[in-house]
């Protein structure tokens, strides 16, 4: 027993010798993240936390100016030209942009390497499809990249913007580090990756040589705090400065009233949808799908269940998109109308219907609320809750009748619509509705150079969706973040990320 005691005491002491405390003058921003990062390789980001960290480390050829109105502005590319046929983009890179950690200067080679790597099947990138319209990326000279497209595509700049596959990595670093690169990323951004201690924190240091000017912070620490109540206490005690990705309604409510705390809200490009599988007999009929839309009390879901913390989804394009047709409202809640539509389509006694959702907050509960509404119009409802990996497998197989699916992305309306509803997006993909109704309109909008005509096409698309109801958009996620007084210039962005570069801190 005594020996056991010694062994335990020894182990305890081992961990106690750590580096000394941070110096007091350092300007450190401590940000809460809700789950851990996995890999910082832009070809394989996928989760929000990876995206948030990479946002600080990397640059794209262009970027969204979220501190203003979200327009596309130069990033690594100083300027760019588009050929008259819209199929060739020539990017002129900034001179003298330095890679972190002494990996030399940025060249056109790095850009070509980064984008070729995403397309290469060996990389097994999730974003391979994002470059499906790219024919080739060529190095014209050390500071000029030419990207040739298979067809004209006015939305192309969105694909090379500072987000996911658009991030440019150092060729030299990737070739040197190989498998180790994902946990030792090398970028050109305002912050340099310092360390990741798993299940604990990610630390970034200011890049004093950043081409946009050195950040006003010395260090950013992303601390993993899963439990929102814990993060709430940590924020109020001043152990963190920014509470990122706040979701819990009660926590939002309490923090909004807390002294010295600011809660910010921003509409994200994120819609949660009930996808109706048209290969399941009853759901093949448009009237039945319309009946489902009338049966769901979505206003109550957003206002009562979510306490007003979610926004109107419109028809997949949230209000954060310029193309969103805000006047095309959702079908009103009308259970009587739903019942009569079901009768007309030959289902007076309803039918069996299963809603599939992941066992994650809040989707598991949303599924139950929806099932309850549908039961009231006479459907024989069942709710299937699957653990995340099992849910992905079921959705990938396309078997569920109704599946709760979220779509998110950059400010390019093509992306959520194409991913969710173009016939090429299944299998593999998210179009488990097997919808084909907007293929031609989407393809036309994709290559339309004229802004007015593009807007008209997207309007037509949304009208068609309202008519056909392949999916019922349920709500639009809002990004909440809370900051301590003293934190200035912080703003969440609609891509569900954030940027510490413009932030200043006064203690």
């Amino acid at each position: 027993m005594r020996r056991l005691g010694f062994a335990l005491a020894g182990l305890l002491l081992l961990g106690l010798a750590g580096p000394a405390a941070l110096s007091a003058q350092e300007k450190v921003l401590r940000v809460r993240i809700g789950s851990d990062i996995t890999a910082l390789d832009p070809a394989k980001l996928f989760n929000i936390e990876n995206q948030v960290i990479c946002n600080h480390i990397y640059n794209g050829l262009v970027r969204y100016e979220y501190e203003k109105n979200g327009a596309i502005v130069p990033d690594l590319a100083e300027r760019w030209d588009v050929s008259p046929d819209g199929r060739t983009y020539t990017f002129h890179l900034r001179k003298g942009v330095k890679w972190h950690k002494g990996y030399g200067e940025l060249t056109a080679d790095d850009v070509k390497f980064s984008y070729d790597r995403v397309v290469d099947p060996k990389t097994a990138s999730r974003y391979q499809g994002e470059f499906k319209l790219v024919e080739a990326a060529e190095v014209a000279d050390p500071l000029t990249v030419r990207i040739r497209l298979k067809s004209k595509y006015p939305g192309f700049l969105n694909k090379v913007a500072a987000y996911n596959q658009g991030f440019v990595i150092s060729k030299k670093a990737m070739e040197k580090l190989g498998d180790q690169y994902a946990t030792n990323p090398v970028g050109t951004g305002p912050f340099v990756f310092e360390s990741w201690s798993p299940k604990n924190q990610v630390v970034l240091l200011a890049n004093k040589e950043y081409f946009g000017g050195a950040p006003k912070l010395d260090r950013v620490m992303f601390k993993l705090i899963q439990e929102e109540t814990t993060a709430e206490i940590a924020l109020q005690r001043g152990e963190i400065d920014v509470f990122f990705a706040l979701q819990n309604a009660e926590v939002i409510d309490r923090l909004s009233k807390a002294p010295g705390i600011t809660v910010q809200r921003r509409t994200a490009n994120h819609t949660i949808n009930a996808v109706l599988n048209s290969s399941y007999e009853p759901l093949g009929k448009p009237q039945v799908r319309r009946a489902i839309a009338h049966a769901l009390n979505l206003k109550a879901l957003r206002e009562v269940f979510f306490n007003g913390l979610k926004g109107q989804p419109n028809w997949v394009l949230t209000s954060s998109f310029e193309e969103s047709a805000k006047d095309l409202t959702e079908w009103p809640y009308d259970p009587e109308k739903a019942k009569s539509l079901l009768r007309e389509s030959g289902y007076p006694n309803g039918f069996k219907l299963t809603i599939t959702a992941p066992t994650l907050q809040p989707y598991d509960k949303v599924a139950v609320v929806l099932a309850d509404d549908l039961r009231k119009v006479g459907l024989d409802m069942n709710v299937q809750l699957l653990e995340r990996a099992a849910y992905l497998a079921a959705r990938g197989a396309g078997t569920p009748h109704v599946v709760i699916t979220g779509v998110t992305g950059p400010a390019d309306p093509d992306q959520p619509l194409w991913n969710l509803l173009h016939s090429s997006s299944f299998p593999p993909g998210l179009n488990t509705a097997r919808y084909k109704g907007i293929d031609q309109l989407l393809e036309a909008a994709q290559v339309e150079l004229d802004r007015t005509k593009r807007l008209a096409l997207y309007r037509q698309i949304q009208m068609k969706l309202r008519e056909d109801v392949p999916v019922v958009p349920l709500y639009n996620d809002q990004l909440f973040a809370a900051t301590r007084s003293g934190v200035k210039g912080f703003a969440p962005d609609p891509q569900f990320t954030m940027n510490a570069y413009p932030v200043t801190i006064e203690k």
Partner: protein
Amino acid sequence: MRAFLITRLSFLVLSVFGAFTIAFLVMRLIPGDPAQVILGDYATKESIARLRETLGLDRPVWVQYVTFVARALRGDFGASLVTQRPAFFEVFAVFLPTIQLAAAGALVSMLIGVPAGVLAATRRNQPLDYVTMTLAIGSMSMPVFWLGLLLLFVCSFTLGWTPSVGAGGDEGWLSTLHHLVLPALALGLSLGAMVTRMTRSAMLEVLRQDYMRTARAKGLRELLIIAKHGLRNAALPIVTILGINFGIQLGGTILIETVFARPGMGSLLISAIYQRDYPQVQALVVVFATSVVMVNVLVDVAYAVLDPRVRR
């Protein structure tokens, strides 16, 4: 003593092997494919097949099992599918905070449980006994994460005595201890209840013995009688409960780590399961099982030290 140790250690190897085999099979029985999780929704059948081949998941389960065991015996537990770093490396990066927490929790449970149990036993059927036992049942029934949140709210938020998040590993050992107080208390309180009950019943048994009466008749001081003649003889069941508790404690650390945002093996295990990171789960199960079995071997050894009859 040597034969005793050899038997115990061979049991250790067998238990770890058994635990590992079960975990290996269960991970492959539950639905969800690591390749699909890694590649996401837009992965084609071909790219999933290619990745499955690279990861060796296309081979029959028994081949995977034999390959893994053969490699593991040479100390190679494979790389995490998520980070590409050696799975063991990932475990050891978070090993210490968890062991610190479990050890500190055990210490707290003993510090609270043993005196409380002795007190209750010596005041049997008196108000103090009832109060102690009621408190014990109360803290045993309280979910550990709820207790953690309460402590956090009272000690950290309202009184401001302790930090609320993290393990404080970067700021020196005093900070590590400071960060450990609340989690250890939360873990120790709920397990201390079990120690209290066990100590009480073991002590009641001992107090009845003739040698206790003899000690009293000799005119020894009551405190000495209880500590030397009583507690020493009641130690075996208390040590047993400590060994059993250790396994429960490692499970409890998963919840405690979440509440106090501490890095640790518990949260690593949860995310590895979510991501179907087979090598990571396997490495973790081996480390968890080894820790639990090791502690129980130590408990067995402690038996032998405490009670010479066990050695035979």
